[in-house]
C-alpha cells in the first residue's frame, strides 16, 4: 500500500471528533437552545415564577384581621374593608417602631395616624386592638400576635400583605402560630408600585422579587 494512502486515512480533517469536542459542541448547542427558548417564552416563564412564588389565598372568615400600623396604606385599607364586609369582628394592629421625627414631635406616629383613621372609618373601640410596642421585624410581630391570640381565644387570623412577601410571611406564620393552634391566612394585596403579572418590567417589581428571594433564604437560615 502506498504511504500517501495511509496518511490520507488518518489526516486530521477526516478524523472523527474526539469525545471532548463532541461534548463541548453538544453542551454549547443545548445551552443556546435553552437560552433561545427562555428568550422566546420569557413572559409565561416569568409569570410562572410570580405565580409560584405568590401564595394566592383568598380571604375567608376569621376571628381577627392583623395588620401592622406601619403597613402600606393599601394593606390598611384592605384590612378595613374586610372588617366592613364582616369577615372578622376584630381589627388587630401591631405597633410599629416610632420614627426619630415622631419622637422629636415633628411628625405624628403611625399608631396615632391609624387610630385617627379608625375613628373616621367608624370602627368602635371594642373592635380594635393595638398590641406590642416598637416592632420593626415580622419575627418580632408574630410572637406578639401569638401571645395575644392565645389569651383571647383567637384561632383564625387574616393577614394582608404584599404579593411577593406572601410566601415568607406564610412560612414564618406557620412556624410561629401553628404550634399554638392558630391558623393564619396570608392574602396578597395588589400594590400600585408594580404589576405581579409583569413584575420584571419595572424596577420596583424586580427589586421586590429579588429582595423576597434573599429574605426567604435569610429566614430559612435564621428561623
Amino acid at each position: 500500500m502506498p504511504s500517501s494512502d495511509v496518511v490520507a486515512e488518518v489526516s486530521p480533517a477526516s478524523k472523527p471528533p474526539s469525545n471532548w469536542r463532541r461534548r463541548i459542541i453538544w453542551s454549547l448547542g443545548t445551552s443556546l437552545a435553552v437560552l433561545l427558548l427562555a428568550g422566546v417564552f420569557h413572559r409565561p416563564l416569568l409569570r410562572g415564577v410570580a405565580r409560584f412564588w405568590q401564595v394566592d389565598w383568598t380571604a375567608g372568615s376569621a376571628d381577627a384581621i392583623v395588620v401592622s400600623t406601619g403597613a402600606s396604606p393599601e394593606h390598611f385599607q384592605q384590612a378595613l374593608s374586610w372588617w366592613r364586609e364582616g369577615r372578622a369582628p376584630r381589627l388587630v394592629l401591631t405597633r410599629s417602631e416610632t420614627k426619630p421625627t415622631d419622637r422629636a414631635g415633628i411628625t405624628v406616629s403611625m399608631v396615632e395616624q391609624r387610630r385617627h383613621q379608625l375613628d373616621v372609618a367608624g370602627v368602635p373601640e371594642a373592635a380594635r386592638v393595638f398590641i406590642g410596642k416598637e416592632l420593626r421585624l415580622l419575627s418580632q410581630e408574630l410572637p406578639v400576635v401569638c401571645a395575644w391570640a392565645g389569651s383571647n381565644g383567637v384561632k383564625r387570623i387574616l393577614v394582608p400583605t404584599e404579593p411577593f412577601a406572601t410566601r415568607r410571611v406564610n412560612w414564618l406564620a406557620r412556624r410561629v402560630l401553628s404550634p399554638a393552634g392558630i391558623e393564619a391566612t396570608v392574602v396578597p394585596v395588589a400594590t400600585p408600585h408594580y404589576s405581579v403579572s409583569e413584575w420584571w418590567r419595572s424596577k420596583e417589581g424586580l427589586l421586590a422579587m429579588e429582595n423576597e428571594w434573599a429574605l426567604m433564604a435569610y429566614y430559612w437560615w435564621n428561623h
Partner: protein
Amino acid sequence: MSIPPTQPPSREDSALRLARWFKWLGIATFMMCLLLAIAWQTRERWLAAMVHAWVVNDSVEPADAVMVLGGGAQFRSFEAVRFHRVGLAGKVLFPHIKPGADEPDATTSRETDLIDRVLAHERVPAEAREQIGRNVTSTRDEVLALRAWADGVQARVIIVPTDPFHTRRLKALIHSIFAGSATRVLVTVVDPPGYRWQEWWRDEHGFLSFQNELLKSVQNAFK
C-alpha cells in the same frame, strides 16, 4: 510516515482511569468541605472584614456645608444638625426633590418639606438652611446640584453623611462628578436605626441593605 491505528482502551485501562477520576473527586470534595468548614468557623471575621472594606468613612473636618441627601430625613438630617451645632458646618444643604405621583399638586415633595421641618425644629437658622437643585430624582441629580452649588460659592470642603452601605457608591459618584473641582467632599457614615452596621448579617434590614447595595454597584459597573 504511517501512524498505527488507535487501539480501543482495555478494561484495565478504563478501571485505572475511573479509579484516578474518583481519587481526584475525593480530593476535591475533601478540599471543598475543608474550605466550607473554615469559612463557617471564621464567618463573623470575614463578614465584618467585608463590610469594613466596603464602607467609606472619611474623617470629618470643618467644612463650608453639610448636605442632607433625600430619603434620609429620619436620620441623615439629625446628623447634619449635629455637625452644624458643633460648628463643623456653617450651612445645611438639602435637595428640592421632585414630588411623587401621589402628591400631584405639591410644589415640593413631602421629603424635602420634612427635612426642612426637622432643621427648623432643631433650631438651624433660616439663613443656614439652603435648598439646592430642582426636582431631583436620584443621588446623581443631588450630587450634580451639590457641584453647581460648590462651584457657585467656591466651597472648600463639604460633608455628606449617609447610611454605611451607600457610602461606596456615593463616593464613586462624587469622584466622577467633582472631577477637576477644588472642592473636597467628605462622605461619613450615619448609623442606621435598629441595628449595628458592623454586624449587618445579624439583622434582616442590614442583610437586605447590604445585598441591595452590592447589586446596585454591580448594575452600575455594567452601565
